[in-house]
């Protein structure tokens, strides 16, 4: 087992990892930028090293500084959390070369799953259902037109290097295709330095349902059931739940088996997530694979009663998994609380938290790094807390979330608590009827 783990991240996930390390009696090293000197993860770690200035590129993305920090503290493993360097193949490789265990995927696995066109062809070969579309990149707009006519409209044009909704265009009619192709590839070239495009059938009214998987070093893989993340705004998840209100035992079985096939196809080691789009007829299609722990992992932890970070660390240290699949025993919902003003287009609202009171009680979990007097720096993402409620039924989990949100006090900055509070009264959400289009019709009062 590792003696010392360096956490190459910040905020709530750094604290999350430190907590599990302490339970496992593994010493921890926090790294921080000058803007995070007062952060909770710095205080809770056994050791802390300042690695650079506030901008992420100078600090949390600064590979030489992070490796140097691991060197001077004699850390034998690095946990990259999510975001930042967690899916950076070069960082995974440099850790390998420096004799430090990267608690995450190998450089090859990251490369395979990171490029969307490559990931899709790998999945197709493994027999995982994929969205019908082009085989790899499109050669020309002519090819695009021909393929779209074959598949039938609507289609989606996507940049292979894209993400966060950029370099994507939905095309509903054939006379829109040419212009959409040209603007999307120009946008991709400018934003990602790679203008390569591929095409997929546009799945109407899709649900975003992902499967948590774990693989070990010995070729075993298992799934820990699904999370429904369909409530999104501009492709950013706002709230997640498990089990999915749209799920059936048969669908879970089929999706679970497909996710395990995906993991085994690349001999995946560690915790990962296979994302699927599910259409109204419960056909599911591979969307992408995330080779890291996800933000919303706590809801899975709550319903199967497992510490996923602990599992990651054990697998990285060479322990085998049992290989059993896990199904949800309870119902859990997570609301991502961001320092944003929901009444002003979710504009970021950094600043000092003058008053903070956390909700508590049965079935309530709060993963956060903020506290009264803490100043949210403007340099990083705006998520400040994850509020998770768990109960025997979906209705009760929503009752608890409503109650917990009412108790939750954060003053001095704007937060998305009012949005989540209204969501917990929304008739469609309460019925469990929602797709990724949900936020288009949602109006905040």
């Amino acid at each position, binding site marked *: 087992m590792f003696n010392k783990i360096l956490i190459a991240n910040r905020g709530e996930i750094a604290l999350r990892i430190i907590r599990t390390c*302490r339970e496992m009696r593994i010493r921890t090293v926090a790294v921080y930028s000058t803007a995070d000197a007062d952060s909770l993860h710095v*205080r809770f770690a056994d*050791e802390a*090293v300042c690695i650079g200035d506030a901008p992420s590129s100078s600090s949390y993305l600064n590979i030489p*500084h992070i*490796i*140097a920090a691991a*060197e*001077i503290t004699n850390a034998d493993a690095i946990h990259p959390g999510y975001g930042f360097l967690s899916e950076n193949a070069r960082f995974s490789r440099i850790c390998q070369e420096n004799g430090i265990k990267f608690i995450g995927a190998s450089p090859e696995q990251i490369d395979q799953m990171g490029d969307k066109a490559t990931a899709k062809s790998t999945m197709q070969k493994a027999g995982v259902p994929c969205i019908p579309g082009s085989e790899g990149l499109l050669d020309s707009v002519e090819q695009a037109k021909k393929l779209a006519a074959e598949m039938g409209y609507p289609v989606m044009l996507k940049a292979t290097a894209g993400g966060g909704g950029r370099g994507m265009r939905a095309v509903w009619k054939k006379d829109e295709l040419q212009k959409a192709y040209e603007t999307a590839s120009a946008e991709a070239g400018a934003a990602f330095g790679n203008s390569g495009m591929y095409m997929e059938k546009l799945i109407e009214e899709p649900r975003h349902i992902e499967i948590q998987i774990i693989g070990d070093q010995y070729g075993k893989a298992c799934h820990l059931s699904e999370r429904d993340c369909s409530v999104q705004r501009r492709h950013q998840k706002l709230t997640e739940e498990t089990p999915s209100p749209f799920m059936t035992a048969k669908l879970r079985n089929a999706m679970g088996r497909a996710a395990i096939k995906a993991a085994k196809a690349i001999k995946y080691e560690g915790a990962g997530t296979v994302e699927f789009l599910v259409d109204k007829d419960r056909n599911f299609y591979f969307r992408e694979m995330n080779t890291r722990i996800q933000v919303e992992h706590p809801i899975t932890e709550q319903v199967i009663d497992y510490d996923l970070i602990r599992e990651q660390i054990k697998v990285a240290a060479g322990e085998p998994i049992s290989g059993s699949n896990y199904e949800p025993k309870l119902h859990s919902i997570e609301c991502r609380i961001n320092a944003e003003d929901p009444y002003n287009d979710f504009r970021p609202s950094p600043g000092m938290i003058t008053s903070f009171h956390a909700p508590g009680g049965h079935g309530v979990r709060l993963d956060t790094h903020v506290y009264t007097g803490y100043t949210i720096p403007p340099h990083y993402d705006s998520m400040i807390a994850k509020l998770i409620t768990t109960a025997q039924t979906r209705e009760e989990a929503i009752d608890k979330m409503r109650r917990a949100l009412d108790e939750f006090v954060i003053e001095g900055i704007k937060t998305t608590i009012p949005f989540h509070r209204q969501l917990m009264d929304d008739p469609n959400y309460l019925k469990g009827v929602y797709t990724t289009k949900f936020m288009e019709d949602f109006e905040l009062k």
Partner: protein
Amino acid sequence: MDIKEIQNLIRFVARSGATEVNLETEEFKINIKTSADQAAMPEQAVLQHVAQVIPAAPVAAAPAAVPSAPAAQVPAASADTTASAPSDDDDKYITVKSPMIGTLYRRPTPEKDTFVSVGDEIKPGDVLCIIEAMKLFNEIESEVTGKVVKVLVDDQTPVEFDQPLFLVDPS
């Protein structure tokens, strides 16, 4: 036992994973506790105990090589400043901070003299120290002109980004 030996001992104990070490000789007694059992504190906090330990131990006469006036102050001063955050008591001085993370060396090689010492005049481009990381040695050059007033770090110790290294009088 001089202040540098005590600091090295503390660092050694902290890194070894031991939680408590008691050392007793005819001249002094020292007790070092790391924070493994308590609520976590950063490693710097362990060094703060040094300031309290020194008065109890009969400190040997100040090292002869150092100029006499600052001699008695320098060991205690460096203990305080390495333990606490950069202080504001020397507002007129420039603080040279570390631009990187690694192990700091004050000498080009162990037998040679230090790059700079207290009292030296420096100008931009002068090498102040070496910081080694990932098997690469980086010469840290001065960006200021002035006289070195205080050296805030010891030879062969780990340093982090922005850590104060030298105080320089620019006047």
